[in-house]
């Protein structure tokens, strides 16, 4: 498809790939937005996921005495392992808020701890820290960083305001809402204007923030592209089709 000026997006071209992923360039780097919510940089064999919020369920029990199902970590791990099996990345980047709180790592059931540690077998793990997990994991393998630079892109948890060419971030949990006739669908999504990217939250118990919310306004000069996650593929949604909550 041709790049489009009329959308107010400069040089944004995309196509739907074989596995339902969306191929495009982010500040010149070739990328695939997967319908799992992961970002895939094939040239660097790097996979990126944001906002896993491991042990969010048990944090409610610890803080409020609310007994949510303690299975969110293994559900997130199931998804993660499926993607790893499909892509075999050499590097796996966590874009922050990997744990819902600083004590989350300590609450991991043994079985889940072993599974996370096993993610590091044959690959490098990079844990960017987020506001929920400022120190990053303590006992798990991998490098804990504030930011990472790969393929000319900068990976950090919280997107910075203003133009940030090449920034890949999470933190905001973007979600797109689309209405047609009498039905509405709300899905987690990527947001990009071709120069920067915000990833959807990957964790099982993570909600979404509508991308029409003002929190997104300082990031994009004009209308951006939402790539909404479907069960089999990513759907590119134009700004005009989006609805507020």
């Amino acid at each position: 498809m041709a790049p489009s000026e009329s959308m107010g997006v400069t040089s944004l071209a995309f196509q739907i790939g074989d596995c339902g992923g969306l191929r495009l360039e982010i500040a010149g780097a070739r990328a695939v937005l997967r319908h799992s919510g992961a970002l895939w940089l094939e040239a660097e064999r790097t996979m990126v996921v944001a906002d896993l919020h491991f042990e969010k369920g048990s944090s409610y029990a610890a803080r409020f005495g609310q007994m949510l199902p303690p299975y969110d970590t293994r559900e997130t791990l199931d998804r993660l392992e499926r993607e790893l099996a499909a892509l075999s990345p050499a590097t796996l980047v966590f874009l922050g808020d990997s744990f819902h709180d600083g004590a989350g790592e300590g609450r991991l059931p043994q079985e889940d701890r072993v599974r996370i540690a096993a993610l590091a077998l044959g690959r490098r793990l990079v844990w960017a820290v987020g506001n929920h997990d400022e120190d990053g994991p303590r006992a798990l393998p991998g490098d804990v960083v504030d930011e990472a630079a790969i393929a000319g892109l900068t990976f950090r948890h919280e997107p910075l305001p203003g133009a940030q060419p090449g920034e890949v971030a999470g933190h905001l949990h973007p979600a797109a809402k689309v209405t047609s006739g009498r039905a509405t669908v709300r899905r987690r999504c990527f947001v990009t204007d071709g120069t920067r990217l915000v990833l959807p939250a990957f964790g099982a118990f993570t909600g979404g923030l509508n991308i029409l919310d003002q929190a997104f306004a300082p990031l994009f000069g004009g209308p951006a592209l939402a790539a909404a996650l479907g069960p089999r593929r990513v759907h590119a949604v134009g700004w005009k089709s989006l609805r507020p909550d």
Partner: protein
Amino acid sequence: MAEATALPPRFQEWFAARGWAPRPHQMAMVEKGRQGRDALLIAPTGGGKTLAGFLPSLIQLSERAPRNTPAGVHTLYISPLKALAVDIERNLATPIREMGLNIVAESRTGDTGEARKQRQRLRPPDILLTTPEQLALFCAWEGAREYFADLSCVIIDEAHALWPSKRGDLLSLGLARLQKFAPNMRRVGLSATVDDPGLVRRWLGRDAEGVDLVLGQGGAQPIVEVLVSDGRVPWAGHTAEHAMAEIYEIIKGAKTALVFVNTRFQAEFAFQELWKLNDDGLAIALHHGSLAAEQRRKVEAAMARGEIRAVVCTSTLDMGIDWGDVDLVIQLAAPKGASRMVQRIGRANHRLDEPSRAILAPANRFEYLECRAAADAILGGHLDGDPARTGTLDTLAQHIMGCACSEPFAPTELYDEVRTSGPYADLSWEDFETVVDFVSTGGYALRTYDKFRRIVPGQDGLWRARNAQAVLAHRMNVGAIVSPAMINVRIGGGKRPMGGRKVGEAEEGFFEQMKAGDTFIFAGQVWRFNSLVGADAFVTPSPDKDPMLPSWGGSKFPLSTYLAGRVRAMMHDECEWPALPPDVQEWLNYQKVRSIIPDQDEMLLETFPHGKRFHLVCYPFEGRLAHTTLAMLLTRRLDRLGVGPLGFVANDYAVAIWSLKPMDQLDLQELFAQDMLGDDLEAWLDESFLMKRAFKACALISGLIERRHPGMEKSGRQVTFSTDLIYDVLRRHQPDHLLLRCARADAATGSLDVARLGDLLARIGGGRIRHAALDHVSPFAVPIMLEIGRERAPGDAAGEMILAEAEEDLIAEAMA
């Protein structure tokens, strides 16, 4: 009169001064009070039922010796409606004042001020008037046992409406608790006429036989007419629009009329239509659950003053205080159940010697038959039966947490106590233990939460709440009413609307389908929708006379089994036809010639081509809920058979499915085989949004998730992540979890009506499907065929379609 002498002189004089004689059922209730017996009074409205309930307590309190220590609550009155509790407080004041009794009667509801609540805690009133939710709160009080030690009587009003629900479960558990605190406490139930008083007695009593039945005298036989406006009954529709002019004339001839409809949107529509005709400027008002509370109170007050000629209303006025001046009840569109109709007719003419007058206005031909059946049932005294009830476990979980908040409990003792509650009489120890474990740790196979328990067993073997925070969180979330997240409808426009006047509330889903500029009817006016900001929808009045009405799918009440049976019988029995209006007769005759009139115990199934599609229409008459479930399951099967089903509609009478390929050669007995309710149902259910909705309700009631949390104020709308996520994760990792069990049970009895569907499949098994392979639409099929295209099935596939459409829009945008 022998009975009257049984009243103390003060009471006799009071009755005499009012020109009244005590009614036999009032004296019977006084007698039950003297004997200390539990009693259920069943009487029509207007028979002095409330006074009958209170008389024994008023007499006892008037005879008590003065004492030095302050007494506790003597009588606890529980009503399903806050407003009713407040009204009864006012109504009780009259006899207390006029007889000069030294009795304090006060209400306490969610709206009662803090100062008054504090005072009531320190100095309990003699008679406390409240709601089931407040009772659940009392049960969670520290010191509840002492507070209620003097309790002598509990009066449950509108018991017929309360018992078959989760509120009823919670209330029954609360009664069991109160009985422990006050072993001599007497239970009194007040109920409208019901089909099987035994079920209400079992619910109300401490054991099966313990409740005496007192029957009020029946009133005069009501006069019920089925309206055939302008000599015709339309083919299809839900609004009875055709009859509006005649209904307006009928209202003109009455003093005060209640116009009942089955949904809020029907109410808005009828209100709008009546005002278009209202050249005489009659005071016609509107009353339904979406209107702001103060607006509803205003209408009620104007009713009480006799200033209103007609109120268009929904089930919000099915019960409540008596208005003496109502002389006519109109039911627009079919009533769906005989009991509900009797209840509604009871709102007219509260003098027992005068007959109530009611007019039923059917909206289509099937509804004509249904209205006729309802009218016959009312005159014959036949009511719809409720199925017996088993107490729900999510509700039990809430109660157990409440008990722990109040005082430490021993599991075996609490188990015995719970089983004295009717709905829980057969509760197994295993289920009880499972619920206790759920309350404590969430009940997960993965024992992560043992260190965060909400309730903990002590060295003494007693269980108590973990800490003050757990207690507070419970108290903030008491109750078994789960309502959808509501949006405030406010007046305001422009880019940044400010909080304008609140017009009312609507379910969240209502505005999701709207875009700025859309017009709709709400609170009896046409509005323009401007924007949705947080929990507020901003609207401005619109001059538009023809708003784009949101669609409504007919009644939310399912057609009762009893009425359905009557309709089938009436259809089959040609001797009954001559009594029907000419166009209904003609319709039945056409059906006989062009298709088939089935036998009473058969189900008719028609197949025919229409347009470019093939259609299958069957007529089970089991109500919309059971039909929707049936349609979902049939569609799955037809899909497997390679017929290519494209869609379906279901109403109260029939199901229509259309497909790419013909369906007349299918093995129909096989298609409707009972094993449909096995794997197919399970597979579909797990993905169904109905299950997710049922799960959410169970999660809220059981305390798994909280509506409100101390220091974490969140509206239903802003929950950071939805219960759907929890449901999906739990279903994959622990499919036998207690709450999934609860949700399945609720969905099966409630929104899916699986029980009724099971009865149908059993009924039509063994060759009871009558198939008519036609080459054209049949007369019976016309109403449902007209509904095709108005509904779209929600679901995952539909969601993908929407996204695909949005993508096409994007491509168009990009290419422009």
